[in-house]
């Protein structure tokens, strides 16, 4: 497509970015890298509030399911390079990962937070994490 002869008026930029597809959240990040003023629009709290209202709530990014006895998996549902893959949850902050990864089982969710419990069959590090 040919480059635009005219540039967009500033107050139309947020109207356009507001309409980026909610099933492709990465498109917001790519837009933020276009120029600083776009990043400014996208990171504004008012814009984020409008975005949620406009698309009737935040998008469903994926599902968390206990697919095995050992760990919960996050299955992305949005367009992303990770689509079709699953992620097993394990503690990211552990500086020395054990030979056998510690799995976390999802116990419950409330208000966007997830309660996880260590693999009940694991031998190390038992506990809950939010």
């Amino acid at each position, binding site marked *: *497509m*040919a*480059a*635009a*002869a*005219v*540039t*967009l*008026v500033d*107050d*139309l930029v947020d*109207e*356009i*970015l*507001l*309409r*980026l*597809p909610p099933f*492709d959240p*990465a*498109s917001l*990040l*790519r*837009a*933020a*890298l*276009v*120029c*600083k*003023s*776009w990043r400014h629009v996208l990171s504004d709290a008012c814009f984020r509030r*409008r975005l949620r*209202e*406009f*698309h*009737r709530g935040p998008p469903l990014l994926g599902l968390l399911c206990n697919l095995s006895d050992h760990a919960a998996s996050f299955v992305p549902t949005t367009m*992303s*390079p*990770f689509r079709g893959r699953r992620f097993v949850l394990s503690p990211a902050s552990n500086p020395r990962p054990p030979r056998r990864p510690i799995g976390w089982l999802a116990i419950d969710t409330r208000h966007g937070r997830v309660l996880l419990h260590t693999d009940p069959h694991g031998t190390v590090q038992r506990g809950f994490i939010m």
Partner: protein
Amino acid sequence: MEVDKGKGEAEETRKVAEADRDTVTLKSSDGKLFEVSKEAAARLSTVLAGMIAGGSIDDNGTDLKQIGSEALENVVDYCNKHANSIPSAALISSSISFNTAPFKEPEEWERKFVDRLSHDALFDLVEAANFLGMERLLDVTCHKISEMMKGKSPDQIREVFNIKNDYTKEELEEIRQELAWAFYDD
């Protein structure tokens, strides 16, 4: 005196006739005239509705100096198509505030309407819709423009929108590394 009275009556009759007209004439920045249904104009554009209600419509052509003839032709075309496609009763019940209204997908005819436009014509139309306070047309044109970003890298988006990159290489690299998952081409 008799003649003057006749003139006065004629003037009165002309005014009544103008008020009864069911179209308004709009004049583009380059002087071209377009007629649009008064009802559709008032319903679809908050600015034209205000002008009609306030009596500031000029029957010889209301000047819209900010809008070129191609964009104004598209605006008028949209108003006419819209007036024909949706029954008035359905429109009255759907008149909700733009700022808080959730997104409604463009209808098939609206999609076709914007799909046939050239890049420049689309950008001119979105500005005209914004200027005239045409919420639905702004919705449809902005949606089309946002679709033009689909699957594109920041570089490609800059090219489409004629935007200068004001990030330094280092800034871009830092963000890219942090958010590598968001980029298809990495």
